[in-house]
């Protein structure tokens, strides 16, 4: 004697369980996919209240170097040391700063370091791999090591955007 009700019942139950699992699984997957959008809104820690950086008309090394010189002039106009820096990634300026050593009374506030901090606030990422740093002058060891820690790919300086070597942590 065979009882077909049990396996049938089991099959129905299994199907129900599977359907429920699929439904809930789908919901869970949707929720998990939406989590980054809900809590991060794009990039974690990026400060969206900051006014956007005005981009140069054409994205050339000369134009970025010219912006670094503009930052240097801004620094010297505000009575600070005459240095400026710009950080560029994918043809866009993602951070720029004049030197603020005198203004902020901070010996570490060189233009390059302030530009790295500007990127940290705007982009909200510790590492900006493949970015290029344009300085009005060659970087000091502090700024070069800072660029190294931030993952900057190349350093350029001056109006002609000379250089192009990757920053080194230690020069000896």
């Amino acid at each position, binding site marked *: 004697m065979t009882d077909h009700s049990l396996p049938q019942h089991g099959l129905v139950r299994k199907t129900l369980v599977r359907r429920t699992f699929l439904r809930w699984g789908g919901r869970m997957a949707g929720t998990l996919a939406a989590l980054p959008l809900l809590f991060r809104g794009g990039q*974690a820690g990026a400060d969206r209240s900051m006014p956007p950086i005005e981009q140069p008309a054409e994205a050339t090394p000369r134009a970025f170097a010219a912006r670094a010189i503009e930052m240097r002039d801004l620094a010297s106009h505000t009575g600070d040391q005459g240095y400026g820096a710009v950080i560029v990634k994918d043809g866009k300026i993602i951070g720029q700063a004049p030197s603020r*050593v*005198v203004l902020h009374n*901070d*010996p570490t506030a060189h233009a390059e370091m302030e530009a*790295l901090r500007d990127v940290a606030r705007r982009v909200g990422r*510790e590492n900006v791999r493949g970015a290029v740093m344009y300085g009005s002058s060659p970087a000091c*060891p*502090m700024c070069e090591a800072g660029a190294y820690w931030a993952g900057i790919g190349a350093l350029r300086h001056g109006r002609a955007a000379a250089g192009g070597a990757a920053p080194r942590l230690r020069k*000896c």
Partner: protein
Amino acid sequence: MLTRRRFLVPAFDPVTDRLTPIEQPETPSPRAFMARALELARLGSRRNEGTPYGCVIVKDNRIAGEGWNRASVRHDATAHAEIEAIQEACRREQRRDLAGYVMYTNGGRPCPMCETAAYWARIDRIFTAVSSPDEITDRGAPKYGGC
């Protein structure tokens, strides 16, 4: 008032619009200052603010500035403990020339960025300890570029 002994609070308190006072050790000694640097390293990394590094800037047996690595929480690769401590000391003392101040930090030797920052700030000497406040190494005056 929140003390900084057990809780890491930012130097600037937005509620009182003032700098939070630094709690000084009961018996000021190189050992106590280095113990504080190691404690900051431990507390900071326990809160996932960055790698386990802490730093204390001292003058006349008094802590002038404290810092710990906040690279993760700030998303800022330059927020090393030594840089944070130099910035805080300069903000508190309202000067950017830290001649006459010494630095206590953990680890083998500050990275070239931090050592050059100490050079620019004209810090007198750097003392380091790896894990124990009893084994302090005198690294001398900071060198330009760490060389």
